[in-house]
């Protein structure tokens, strides 16, 4: 991985406006995501967390505003540039969004087949070890998505998102619907992958534990804009929603357990 300047934003969102019918979701939103960080995006229901994610990856065209990824405006790109860009990021949708007619291994091979000339056997091998990478058992590859549990589908979805070794991964509520143990495993997995693959992670989440465990910075969607900062910054913020989010009983519990683990494992 060629590391760029440490402080160069890899994603730059400026003046983003999203409106559905008469409902304004984002109004002049600015956001920077830096290389190598894990950015957690939180906000109440209907504040447009998923819309923001979908807009950045180009699934939703905003009313106005610019989005630059790797320094290039995604809306003024040619088809070709767009395809090249698609190769450099991976998206994990909420329920994995695996193709239901293909096995898990074939799902992972879809992007490999699409973009590269590669012997069948190597493709199978790569699929198998991506499965190992995300912690799925060996026999998962031959199964169809409907035969997997929700947590396994998410892992498989992550394996597909990582198939092309992207520089950025977008995660839409990766731990929603997982039991606390599986959610904790998933957090660890993201953190390990981030450090070993040098990933930049854009993660929409509701999971306070995830925020405390793995996020370098947190973006909170309030008032149709976004407030970004480290967790410490957010804990000091006086906005009523942010206060009640981080200082409610669940927020406190997550903060405490995080401190406990940091004390237990000084790393």
């Amino acid at each position, binding site marked *: *991985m*060629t*590391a760029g300047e440490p402080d160069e934003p890899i994603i730059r969102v400026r003046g983003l406006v999203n409106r559905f019918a008469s409902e304004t979701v984002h109004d002049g939103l600015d956001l920077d995501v830096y290389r190598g960080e894990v950015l957690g995006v939180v906000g109440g229901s209907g504040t447009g967390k998923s819309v923001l994610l979908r807009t950045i990856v180009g699934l939703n065209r905003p009313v106005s505003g610019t989005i630059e990824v790797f320094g290039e405006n995604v809306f003024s790109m040619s088809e070709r540039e767009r395809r*090249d860009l698609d190769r450099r990021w991976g998206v994990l949708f909420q329920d994995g969004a695996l193709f*239901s*007619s293909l*096995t*898990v*291994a*074939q799902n992972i091979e879809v992007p*490999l087949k699409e*973009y*590269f*000339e*590669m*012997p069948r*056997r*190597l493709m*199978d*091998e*790569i*699929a*198998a*070890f*991506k*499965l*190992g*990478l995300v*912690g799925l058992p*060996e*026999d*998962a*590859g*031959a199964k169809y998505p*409907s035969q997997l549990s929700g947590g396994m589908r998410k892992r498989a979805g992550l394996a597909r998102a*990582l198939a*092309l*070794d992207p520089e950025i991964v977008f995660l839409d509520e990766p731990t929603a619907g997982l039991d606390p143990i599986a959610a904790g495993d998933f957090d660890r997995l993201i953190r*390990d*992958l981030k*450090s*070993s*693959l*040098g990933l930049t992670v854009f993660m929409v989440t509701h999971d306070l534990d995830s925020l405390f465990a793995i996020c370098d910075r947190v973006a909170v969607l309030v008032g149709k804009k976004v407030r970004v900062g480290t967790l410490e910054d957010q804990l000091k913020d006086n906005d009523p929603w942010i206060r009640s989010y981080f200082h409610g009983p669940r927020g406190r519990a997550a903060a405490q357990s995080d401190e406990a683990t940091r004390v237990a494992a000084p790393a």
Partner: protein
Amino acid sequence: MAAVTATFALAEEEGGSIVLRAAGEWLVATAGALDERLRRLEVPRGRSVTLDLAAVERLDTAGAWLVLRTEHDLAARGNAVEIKNLHAEFAPLLAQLRAGGMLAPARHPRPAHHTLIGFIARIGEITLGLFARGYSILSFFGLVSITIGTLVLHPRRLRLTPVVAQMEQTGVNALPIVGLLSFLIGIVLAYQGADQLRRFGAEIYTVDLLGVGVLRELGVLMTAIIIAGRSGSAFTAQIGTMRVNEEVDALRTLGLDPVEVLVTPRLIALLVTLPMLTLFSDFMGLLGGALMAWNSLDITIPQFLAELRYALSNWTFWIGLIKAPFFAVIIALIGCYEGFQVSRSAESVGRLTTLSVVEAIFLVIVVDAGFSILFSLLQI
């Protein structure tokens, strides 16, 4: 993307060790080219091998996999392997991959019916499946009959609002399409009939053909097929979607009988609307035929009606209409049954909706043929 290259070369070192020098960009883009050559690597057994990665500029998971696989393959053949000069930035990647373990590639499932025995087994499977299905549909019919029976005993439990709503959807809203298609069929039939019968100077019998054809068979059959495609599929999709959302299970936990709530209103509505639509279809078909006869055969409307009265027996109209409620039961039953067969995946909604239409139309035509045999035995 700029062209990326990855290479490796084997060399003998002093001390009897063999060095594999890797260089360039070992990425997913170059993995395909490296793969074949790495697999065919010729290294004498028992010698120690050093994988020298000093010149590797970039490494991603696919490249790292090739390194690890080569290491693994060589080790399996009894070579002592050592990885040397790994750039510090790649170390965590390799460590992470080692932790994931070496998994055997998944074998792709091969459809079993590609072999002869598999093919024969498949025929057997399908046949048995067909019987199981028939049995299951009959059971469902029984279940619905019992529910209808209790409704007859306790008429107050009938939910009138959904019945009326279903009547609107399956009946009123279907009027334009049923009317238009029947009208066109009438025109086509009159035109074709006139064309053939004119050769014998028997144009007037076009009216008989039209009357008997439309009233006995085509009116009701066309209506049933349109409604199977339009409402039968809607039944499956509606109930199927409710199954996916666990709404059907929710009904059960609330103490409501899904058959009573979902099936009976649809069945009753269709029992009322299908005969009415058939009546409408008969009328539109005859209208189309009459206009065509007027236009191309100069048979005026009064002439047409007089000939029609002469051509039809007392039974002709009723023979068509009597079939409508049977078709209604088939369509509603199959539509609802397939809806309940939906599993929790959205994909099965689509599959079963298609299946429900095909099955309903198939059964409608089979039953129609059965009626023809019955009527010919009864000589009406």
